[in-house]
Each structure stands twice: as structure tokens, then as C-alpha cells.
């Protein structure tokens, strides 16, 4: 029973971490190559969830919903970049934060106008609605599918960045974009591709959570903030850092919420445990971040200086 609980929560944590990785990968890639920070990344995630839920309810096909949401957000990302986000590339991070904050306000309200204020729901497909058996534990098949899909995406991203020409250009662009540009690479297109790729991953993350969370206005912000924690812990600009950071944050957050109240109840009297348990559990991730940064201000996988 207890072992099952630990295993189940560990898988939940892993699943959450995978989603955070999908978010963090895009954000950190964009930051790495363009030195651009996008608070509206959470809005892209929200749009992904809404598109997927809409497509799913109209077509009835879950797979179509996921794929089309990802593609639409990919295109939306490219369009946003084309429309003039590039003006902000050369501005200070503060300007970028505030301008994209404006976009967050706009997106949340747009969603309210188009889809209404009430949460909408999306069902997992029938073939993923059962449970799978993992080491004797019955685990929801849909969550397991998220883990598998996320790991495949992570692998694909690794291969893209480490093994392909475009990945080489991305890495080169992150270390010295002026030089890459001087060597005849169209850096604007590279930027647009990376931004759209990051957007697409955020859209995918949003589409995947449709069946397990309620899809509602403002759903992007809590995830966005945890994503920022992930990339700060991992080292801003590092994909590897984003992966480990996301898994650690996912595990600590999920397991903390379950086990901290249990431990507290064992150690203190129940009234006090109920009072401070939830508070302490939700602080855990941020405390972890504070401790890591106190010792390693650059994050766990610092990115070496770029030009």
C-alpha cells in the first residue's frame, strides 16, 4: 500500500515534470538563442489546451486534437514572431517581461471572450481511459501515455539539437549569434524557427493536460511560474538543465503535497499539521530553488558565456 502510494506519486511527479519540461524546453531555447524572455509562453500553453479541447469536441478524434493544437501553436508562434515580436529582441529583459505581460492580459481576456469564463473539459480517448499495470500498481493509462510521449519528445529534441544541421545552427547561435550570422546563416529565420518550436512544445503541453486539468482562462500562469523556477534551477538556456530541473520540480512538488502533510501529522499534533501542511508543501519547490541558488546562482547546469 505505502509502496504503491510512493510509486504512484512518483509517476505523477514524473508526469508533471515531463509537462514542465515541454514548457521549459521552449522557453529556455528561446532564451538561449535570442536572449528573449516570454511570459506569454503560458498563454501559448493555454491556447494549446483550448484548441485541443475545441478540435476534440468537434472532430471526436483525440490524436487529431493534439497534433493540430501543436501545429496551430507552432504557426501562431511563427506568426507572432513575424508580426513584430522581433522588435523586442534587442530590448532589455525588463521591457520584454512587461511587453509580454501585456500579451498575457490580452490572451486571458481573449480566451474569456471566445470560450467564456467557465472551465471547459476534454476527455481522454477510450483507448487511454483504463489503467495500466506497472509493477503491480494500477496507474491511469492516460498519465502514463503523457510520460511516454514526453520522453519521446525529449529524445526527439535531443536528436534535433545534437544530431542535425539545424540543431548545430541553434547551438552555434546560442554561443555567438553574430558569428553565425556572418557565416551566412539567416539568423532571423533561425530565430523564428526556434520561437515557433518552443511555442509548439508549449501548445503540446497544453493539449496534453486538457484531459487531466480543467481548461480555463489564466491556466497558463501557475505553470509559467513553475517553468521559470525550472529554468532558473537548471541554468537559463540549458536544455539539459531544463530536463533535470523539470523532473526534480515535478517530483518535489507532487510528492511534497502528498507526503509533507503525512509526515507532519506523524510528528506534530493533527490540528497543527492540517494548518501548516499545505502551506509547507506548496513552499517546497521554492525553498528548493532558494537553496540551490544560494549555492549555485547560475543554476545546476550553467551555460557558459555567450557572445
Amino acid at each position, binding site marked *: 500500500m505505502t509502496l504503491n502510494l510512493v510509486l504512484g506519486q512518483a509517476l505523477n511527479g514524473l508526469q508533471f515534470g515531463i509537462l514542465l519540461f515541454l514548457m521549459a524546453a521552449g522557453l529556455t531555447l528561446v*532564451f538561449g538563442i535570442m536572449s528573449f*524572455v516570454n511570459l506569454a509562453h503560458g498563454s501559448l500553453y493555454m491556447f494549446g489546451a483550448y484548441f485541443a479541447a475545441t478540435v476534440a469536441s468537434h472532430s471526436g478524434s483525440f490524436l487529431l486534437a493534439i497534433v493540430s493544437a501543436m501545429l496551430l501553436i507552432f504557426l501562431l508562434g511563427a506568426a507572432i514572431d513575424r508580426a513584430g515580436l522581433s*522588435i*523586442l529582441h534587442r*530590448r532589455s*529583459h*525588463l*521591457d520584454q*517581461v*512587461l*511587453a509580454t*505581460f*501585456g*500579451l*498575457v*492580459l*490580452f*490572451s*486571458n*481576456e*481573449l480566451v*474569456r*471572450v471566445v470560450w467564456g469564463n467557465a472551465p471547459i473539459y476534454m476527455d481522454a480517448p477510450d483507448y487511454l481511459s483504463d489503467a495500466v499495470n506497472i509493477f503491480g500498481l494500477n496507474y491511469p493509462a492516460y498519465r502514463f501515455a503523457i510520460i511516454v510521449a514526453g520522453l519521446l519528445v525529449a529524445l526527439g529534441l535531443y536528436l534535433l539539437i545534437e544530431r542535425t544541421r539545424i540543431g548545430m545552427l541553434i547551438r552555434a547561435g546560442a554561443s555567438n549569434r553574430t558569428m553565425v550570422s556572418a557565416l551566412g546563416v539567416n539568423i532571423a529565420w533561425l530565430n523564428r524557427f526556434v520561437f515557433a518550436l518552443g511555442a509548439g512544445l508549449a501548445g503540446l503541453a497544453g493539449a496534453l493536460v486538457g484531459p487531466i486539468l480543467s481548461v480555463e482562462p489564466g491556466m497558463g*500562469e501557475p505553470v509559467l*511560474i513553475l517553468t*521559470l*523556477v525550472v*529554468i*532558473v534551477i537548471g541554468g*537559463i538556456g540549458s536544455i539539459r538543465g531544463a530536463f533535470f530541473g523539470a523532473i526534480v520540480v515535478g517530483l518535489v512538488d507532487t510528492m511534497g503535497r502528498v507526503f509533507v502533510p503525512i509526515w507532519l501529522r506523524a510528528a506534530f499534533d493533527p490540528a497543527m499539521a492540517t*494548518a501548516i501542511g*499545505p*502551506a509547507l*508543501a*506548496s*513552499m517546497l519547490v*521554492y*525553498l528548493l*530553488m*532558494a537553496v540551490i*541558488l*544560494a549555492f549555485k*546562482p*547560475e*543554476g545546476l547546469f550553467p551555460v557558459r558565456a555567450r557572445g
Partner: protein
Amino acid sequence: MADSITASATVPIPERVDRRVWVAVFLMLLFALVPLYAWLADDVYVLTYFGRMLIFALAAVGLNLILGFGAMASLGHAMYFGFGAYTVGILSTWGFTNGWLHLSVALVVTVLIAIPVGWIALRTRGMAFIMITLAFAQLFFYVFVSLRAFGGDEGLSLTELSGFGALTGNKYAIYLSLLLTLVLVLWFTHRLVKSRFGLVLRASRHNEPRLNALGTASQPYRLVAYVFSAQICAVAGFFMANLTGFVSPSLMSWLISAEFMVMVLLGGMGTVFGPVIGAAGLLLIEDGLKTVTEHWPLILGPLIVLAVIWLRQGLWGLMAPSGGKAASSADQGDH
């Protein structure tokens, strides 16, 4: 310049001041006339309305101390705003109603938290600093959301406001002391920025390695500035709780932190009086849009984007005598 602001035209203003001094004096006089209007028209609501504006102005002036003068872009100052407000809420729930006690506890708690938070956050620069301050604010946001004893995410209606004898809960007294506090903080900021301390702070914004090489460790100065700025926000929160009689975690939400930042930017970063204009401007724009459509963020969002892109010196910078050029060389220590 801010000297003449504080003196509210009782002192003859020296020549060679730019016209913006008059704007500042005029604006503060308008704020000072609000209670008179409220008394004549018997309309206490205007005190709450403009009081809220003064509170945001106070917080924005506080944030600007580090954001504008020290280039420390904290996206977490709503946290200190919330501390100030919750100190009032929690202490009065426990039966301690002395107003001075509320204020001092708010300041002490803020110092105790701002020092470690600032110490960790200031180890980083730029983007990481923005994200870390945001994350810390989020930490405390969730703490207050999960404190069921104090209303959790629904907030807490104050049974008793901070006690100041016969003046307790008097909207006129709250408004006037708020105005006085804002004037004092503006004066303090003006003096601080001109002092050696302010010089180091402003220098750290430009070239920290050079500053350190000259033999001045910038870090302690930055930390002290961070703590001051946090305290100003806490005082703003203290007033917020007393003005509205209600505290909730939404006071600490990152949206409020971002609003403070927008106010500073809209008014003019690194200017003493700019944030006041920015706060009043943003709140007026918001309320104006609210009368037009219930979907006002649909307009406000793009307006913020445009302001970031085009209004680089802020509204205060626009009013500069040389058409904004003086401020654009960014560091004349425009104050």
C-alpha cells in the same frame, strides 16, 4: 526638484527648475484637495478611490528605488505589499489592534524576510533576478493561500482596523496620513538618490565591475536599497488593508507585481516623481477602459505593449523640457 514637491509651494521655488516641478506640485495639490471635496460633497468614496491611487503610487515609488536607480527588476514586490496588509489582518485577528504595533511589526517582518530573499536574489543578475524575485513572491503567495485560519484564498475581512485612538478607521485620517507618507517617501528618495549611497546605487546600474574595481563593494548597497524598497511597499500594504478593510492573497499575486513595474515604466524609470504619474495614469486608464467595456484587458494589454515599445522615458520623460532628450541619455540621474 522633489524638495519643492515636498514643500508644496510654501517655499519659493528657485529659478532654473523645469516645468515638471509645477506638474508635480499641481498633482500633489490636487491629491491634497480630495479630502476637501469629499467633505464638501459628503462623498467618502472619492477618498477610497484616490487613496488607492496614492497607495499604488507609494508602492511604485518604492519599487522604482531599486528598479529605476539600481536596475534591479524585481517582479516580486507585491509580496511585501501583501506582508504589510496581512500584518494588519493577522494581528487584529489575534486581538492586537494598536496601529503603531501593526506598522512596526510590518516593517520588522519585511526586513527579516527581505534580507535573506534579497541576499539570494542579488547573487544573480538580469533575467535570473526577475525570475527569482517572482518565484519568492509566489512562495509567499501560496503560503497565504493555504493559511485557512486567515481566510485562505478568499481573503480576510478585517474585524478591526489599525487602532490610532479616535482616528481609527477615519477615512480622512487614513487618506491624509497616506498623502503625508507619500510626500515623505518622495523626499526621502530624492535625498537618498543624491547622497553617496544613491551615487553608488546609480553607478552599480551602469558598470558594476568598474564600481567594484574602484574599491566600493556594490552588493551591500544594493541589498540595503532592496530592503528600503521592500519596506516602502510594506507600508503601502499597511495602508491598503486599512483603506479597504480587506486583505487577500490576490494583493500578493504576480499580476500586482507586474502592475507595479508597469507603473514605474509608464511614469518614468529612475525619476523620483515619475512612478506617481505612472500609478495614477495606469489606474485611470484601467478605470476608463472599464467604463467602455467589461473586456478591458483586451485593450489594456496591447496598450502596455505599445507603452513599452514607444514610451521609453515614460510620461514623466515626455514632459521633460527638451522633449525627452534629457532623459534619454538615461543617466543624468534625472531627479
